[in-house]
């Protein structure tokens, strides 16, 4: 089905965290960043628009989505934009981090061997043994760890282009919905999917880490093509 009303999708990075040694909560400064992002989203909402908030299956993206929801809801009330229908945040698997498998377990890429060992069943592999695995050794030896995954030709799981395609496929599938009213999905995710998406569909290179609470913006038009915008870059991907 082709869109008859505007469909916008935003890939938004979660708010600031102290480190990536595990799934840590958003900092106070990060909460402020998210509130401001919410204000900016609120300023662009269209009367009659339905706004869905999705988050990846992690604590930091969930927290971000709920703070964002609160910020947008407050602004909508203040601005008497009661015509906007703001939905409660829900978890969605499509915007998760890359599926990486170590010793038979799907893991989240984290910044230390100790934090990764905690994701495995007890007594599976020690931090020292994990550090011997070729991909992880390279990952932890590189200052830009996510860049290592993005450019890796054969990671133990999803590569960057696969994740990028997953995101675009999900976004494009929203066109199947009956778009009689403007619809917006704000999807709180992580930097690896965002960098993969930017490299594959917008920039053709890896731009490095997005800022916390920064967004990539997609706008679909009637023929199913999609305008992708990030910072000052924009490109149309044909439907």
């Amino acid at each position, binding site marked *: 089905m082709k869109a008859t009303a505007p469909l916008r999708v935003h890939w938004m990075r979660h708010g600031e965290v102290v480190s990536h040694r595990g799934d840590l909560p958003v900092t106070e400064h990060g909460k402020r960043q998210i509130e401001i992002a919410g204000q*900016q989203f609120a300023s662009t909402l269209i009367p009659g628009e339905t706004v869905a908030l999705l988050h990846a299956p992690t604590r930091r993206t969930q927290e971000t989505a709920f703070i964002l929801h609160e910020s947008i809801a407050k602004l909508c009330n203040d601005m008497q934009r009661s015509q906007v229908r703001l939905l409660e945040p829900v978890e969605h698997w499509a915007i998760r981090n890359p599926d990486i498998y170590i010793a038979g377990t799907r893991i989240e890429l984290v910044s230390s061997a100790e934090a990764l060992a905690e994701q495995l069943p007890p007594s599976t592999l020690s931090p020292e043994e994990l550090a011997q695995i070729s991909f992880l050794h390279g990952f932890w030896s590189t200052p830009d760890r996510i860049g290592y995954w993005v450019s890796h030709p054969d990671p133990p799981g999803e590569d960057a282009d696969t994740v990028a395609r997953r995101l675009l496929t999900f976004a494009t599938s929203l066109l199947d919905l009956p778009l009689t009213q403007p619809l917006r999905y704000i999807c709180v995710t992580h930097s690896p999917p965002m960098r993969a998406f930017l490299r594959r569909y917008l920039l053709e290179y890896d731009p490095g880490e997005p800022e916390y609470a920064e967004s990539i913006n997609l706008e679909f038009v009637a023929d199913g093509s999609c305008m992708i915008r990030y910072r*000052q870059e924009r490109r149309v991907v044909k439907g």
Partner: protein
Amino acid sequence: MASRIVDLSPLVPQGFKGPPSTNIGVQFEVRTKPGYWQSAQVLMSLHTGCHVESALHCIENGESIDQVDLERVIGSAVILDLTPVAERALIDISDLERAQERLAAQNETIQIGDILLLRTDWAQRAIGTPVYFPQSPGLTESAARWLVDRRPKCIGCDFFEEPAAREPGWTADQFVVHRTILSAGIPLVEGLVNLVELPPRCQFFAPFYRFAGIDSALARAFAIVED
């Protein structure tokens, strides 16, 4: 697609007024020799006309102007249209939010790392005259914080944003708008004109003189606009 340059710097003739605190109008001294030869020198405040300011302007041991890389004053800019603005008006968060909504109505948004250009058209009318500084609209401290929170890499104004410094006898600790912006590592470009000619987003350039160890430098700001 054709592109053109929009000059965003005012013409600065002899006598053009700088800030009242320095009480200096531009004074050229043109040296000549018989036959035809001339070489001019100038006495002026570096806060006259279009100029860029660094943290050293109001923060002890802050960044000097030569420490500001050019890439921080060159890049994609969005125009926050605050017009109409009355003389001596205080621009607050609600005014900035309205400007942001205007931007959204033109399908444009503020992005992290943008250059924010604040348009009131005040400099267009008054820069270089004795009323430019004392009668200028200004920003509230909250408005300055709102701008900083958008995480721009640079902010430019076509008015004098520090209301406390309109009056004689102001003190450095009242320089709150400058302090809020410059302490966040955001250079300020002041004395812009012709913002009325810009679309909601354009490429902005504010190359400036590379003076060493001081707080400000003269600039020749311009924009490149796609037609």
